[in-house]
């Protein structure tokens, strides 16, 4: 536990990659604050030539999916938003059960749809990769996820306002 805490302290002072933005390094990774100058200009020692730190990008490079590259810069914000939304959704469910009004149910519908959208998008981006499917199909797949989510939200809102509402629907189904 102390080791973990120490690791976290180290990681906070150095840059680490996120799920989408990492350089896929194993073990401890530290970014030096300056680049090491090659040994040729200093001393005559030929003995141990260490690994030379060359400048490199900590943002994603194109060994992965292109759409991950774009998302790389925002990913921390996106990740945090996902967690906050999960907590909101966790509260929205009992709220809608206690106050089954269209307004509260709309918040439930929005939270469920966005949560589900981010989840499905993550699955699609994980498995429908350019290295397997080429360049066009992954983009189409992500577009399809957006379409599905918009349709789902539209359908849920339509259901809330013209039909019995989400919580009521579950209650009625359970009465069977």
């Amino acid at each position, binding site marked *: 536990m102390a080791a973990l805490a*120490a690791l976290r302290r180290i990681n906070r002072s150095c840059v680490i990659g996120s799920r989408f933005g990492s350089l896929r390094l194993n073990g401890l990774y530290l970014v*030096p604050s300056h680049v090491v100058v090659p*040994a040729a200009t200093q001393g005559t020692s030929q003995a*141990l030539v260490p690994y030379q730190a060359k400048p490199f990008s900590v943002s994603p490079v194109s060994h992965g999916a292109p759409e991950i590259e774009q998302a790389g810069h925002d990913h921390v914000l996106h990740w945090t938003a996902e967690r906050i939304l999960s907590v909101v959704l966790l509260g929205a469910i009992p709220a809608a059960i206690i106050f089954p009004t269209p307004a509260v149910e709309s918040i439930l519908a929005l939270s469920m749809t966005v949560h589900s959208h981010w989840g499905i998008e993550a699955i699609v981006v994980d498995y429908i990769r350019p290295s397997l499917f080429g360049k066009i199909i992954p983009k189409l797949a992500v577009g399809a996820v957006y379409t599905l989510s918009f349709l789902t939200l539209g*359908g849920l809102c339509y259901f809330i306002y013209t039909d019995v509402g989400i919580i009521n629907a579950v209650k009625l*189904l359970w009465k*069977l």
Partner: protein
Amino acid sequence: MALVLRFATRGCGGASRHPTSLQGPQWSRALFTTPTITAMNNQTAEDYWAKNKRLRRPVSPHMTIYKPQITSMLSLSHRASGLALSGLMSGFSIGMLALPGSYPHYLSLVQSMEFGGVLICGVKFLLAMPFMYHLCNGVRHLVWDLGYGFTLRTLYQTGYFVIGLSLVLSGVVAVM
């Protein structure tokens, strides 16, 4: 582990660099970097995947030989249950958009089929299970995101707890 940490702390905090001997970040980097870094430094124009495809190299077994463990199986189930719930939600929402009748109408259709109590109870359990599991494991995920519960023992304990709790909650809801 402690040794590595000591090197790391020294490397991160220290200002001097001695290129002729391995120290701190260089030491850990030399041991822990993957071929990805060196690949970036090479001049090869061919993509890694294209090259291996061209050479028709076989892929080592991975999914077929890795032992199923509670960690990976629960993670998979979390994703699978999320996908199933999302599919159900989208199917319901878009279905109710497309179908002409109202929800109580279709509910009465199902009611007229007069399914047995045990069957209805079973279906309710099967509907509730992915939802309860995803809910419980989702909370477990949020606890991880706060930084707690990463020791292997705790992972296994909370894992079994989540499975048990989901079964219990689904059972309670199924008989309601």
